[in-house]
């Protein structure tokens, strides 16, 4: 139980301020946050900071090992790997964030209906989710990609629709848990209507687990999207998507290892950063933790 400092008064602290203060205590989360911010900046400023255009083919320097001119070397068509990685950050971030937003929107919609109204509606939706989730994630994603076709936007759609069920189940669970709380009964007792209860009482408390899952979800989405590109279903040839860069570099792996190492490393760092940030947020957003 939080022991209250009896004397000083309580200044109005915004929720965001408190969460940030708690997050700052967790070193690993800060590392994650810093990397995420750097990645976002790279994604936004991609055009400005890349040394060469991602499609420019320097025919004089095919498959060149990392050197002064090309810091991370060039691929089989002489394109500068560093620039392609930087531009790839923009693609991956776009894919990750948009697909998570889509999944969260669909999931929240389905989950809140099932969670709030319960009864038969809840059963039907839950059975649908059971069936939906009995298809392994990547298998569903690949099937969707086949149907929707290749390309970046289609893989965003595919990943979004595939991961929707996790959010739906999570939102339904947290709504049901919050609905059982006595402060919801108290809200009904002071004449709060359904809309007010959902917006003011249920959502703010059901949101924090959603934020955590979305943060972790971005990492997962990037992983899935790059897998799609790797097997040739995501972004197509000229686009410097990390997955397709890996696929491209595979046949030159024997002698030019560096082509394969850096894109994979970028994916890992990106996913790692979001996982660290997600873990940190989970503890920071838990209202019962001491400040």
């Amino acid at each position, binding site marked *: 139980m*939080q022991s*209250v400092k009896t004397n000083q008064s309580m*200044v109005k602290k915004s*929720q965001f301020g408190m969460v940030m203060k708690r997050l700052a205590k967790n070193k690993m989360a800060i590392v994650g946050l810093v990397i995420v911010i750097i990645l976002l900046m790279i994604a936004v400023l991609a055009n400005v900071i890349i040394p060469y255009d991602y499609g420019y083919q320097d025919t004089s320097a095919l498959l060149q090992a990392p050197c002064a001119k090309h810091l991370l070397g060039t691929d089989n068509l002489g394109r500068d790997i560093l620039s392609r990685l930087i531009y790839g950050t923009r693609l991956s971030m776009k894919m990750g964030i948009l697909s998570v937003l889509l999944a969260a929107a669909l999931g929240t919609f389905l989950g809140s209906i099932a969670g709030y109204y319960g009864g038969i509606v809840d059963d039907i939706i839950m059975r649908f989710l059971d069936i939906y989730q009995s298809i392994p994630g990547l298998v569903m994603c690949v099937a969707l990609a086949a149907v929707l076709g290749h390309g970046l936007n289609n893989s965003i759609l595919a990943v979004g629709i595939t991961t929707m069920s996790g959010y739906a189940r999570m939102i339904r669970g947290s709504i049901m848990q919050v609905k059982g709380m*006595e402060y919801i009964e108290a809200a009904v007792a*002071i*004449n709060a209507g359904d809309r007010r209860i959902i917006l003011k009482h249920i959502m703010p*408390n059901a949101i924090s687990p959603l934020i955590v899952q979305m943060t972790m979800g971005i990492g997962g989405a990037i992983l899935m999207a790059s897998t799609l590109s790797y097997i040739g279903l995501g972004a197509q040839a000229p686009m410097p998507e990390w997955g397709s860069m890996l696929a491209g570099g595979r046949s030159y792996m024997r002698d030019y290892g560096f082509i394969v190492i850096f894109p994979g490393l970028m994916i890992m760092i990106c996913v790692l950063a979001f996982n660290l940030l997600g873990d940190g947020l989970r503890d920071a957003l838990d209202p019962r933790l001491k400040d």
Partner: protein
Amino acid sequence: MSEILRVENLTKFFDTSGGKLHAVDGVSFSLEKGKTLGVVGESGCGKSTLGRTVLHLLEPTAGKIYFEGKDITKVGKKELHKLREDMQIIFQDPFSSLNPRMTVSDTIAEPLILQKKLQKVQIGQEVEKLMDTVGLADRFANAYPHEMDGGRRQRVVIARALALNPKFIVCDEPVSALDVSIQAQILNLMQDLQEERGLSYIFVTHDLSVVKYISHDIVVMYLGQLVEKAPSVEIFRSPLHPYTKALLSAIPKPDVHEKSKRILLKGELTSPINPKPGCRFAARCLYACDRCHEPQVQKEIMPNHFVACCRAEELMTGTLQDG
């Protein structure tokens, strides 16, 4: 004395996988204005369900509820809306009865905002006044629930219940989660509020010493059935129902010299799902006979002292004929 609330044959069943759960089964009582009715019983006896059903937080399965003489059993949305301003509820667990994401002042202001009668500034003043009446220092206005201890949190819950200036409050075990010294402060606060505002309470608890102190009349419940109702002094001096006797004898008295002789019940609570007709205490009662298996009727053996036990008179007069 004008009667603020009367309940006749109130029944509430829950459908469970195993069958029908008889949470509240044919309970009738009335409550005078400005008085406190204590509802006491062990866990699973349906006392919380009773409190919530009276307030329409749970829809009654059968029976009638009269509030200030008006039948409010079947009530439309608008009328219920108006009713909710006169009837409020206080919960047991200070942790889960406050929205962790709202500050104290927002929580207390919420009912006033919903009422849409006062402007923002007036609401602010009203909140300050309410915090003052429940003894909360102003510096807690911006505090979040997890930053306060149980006693202060319960004061916020009481302030929220008082915001709409209700006439009647159901208190569902309001002090059970608190320490003895804090409990005494809250009980005094509730008594002062009753005197100042003429509030009437239904006070639900499993703590017999608390119920004796605060209530004018007491209702004892067992597995959804009302077994005895009487003025609080009367019940403690001469309990008539065998269960009430056992319950009172089980309280450990803080008195070293007078070691109480205990009536020890045998066995455990029977299941409330699809119970057999008649008295549900028969399985554990020392005086059970076959007459106990018919439905029991609430009889007024002594003035204002009702008992639902066919052998109550015999017990009282000590003329026990066997079964």
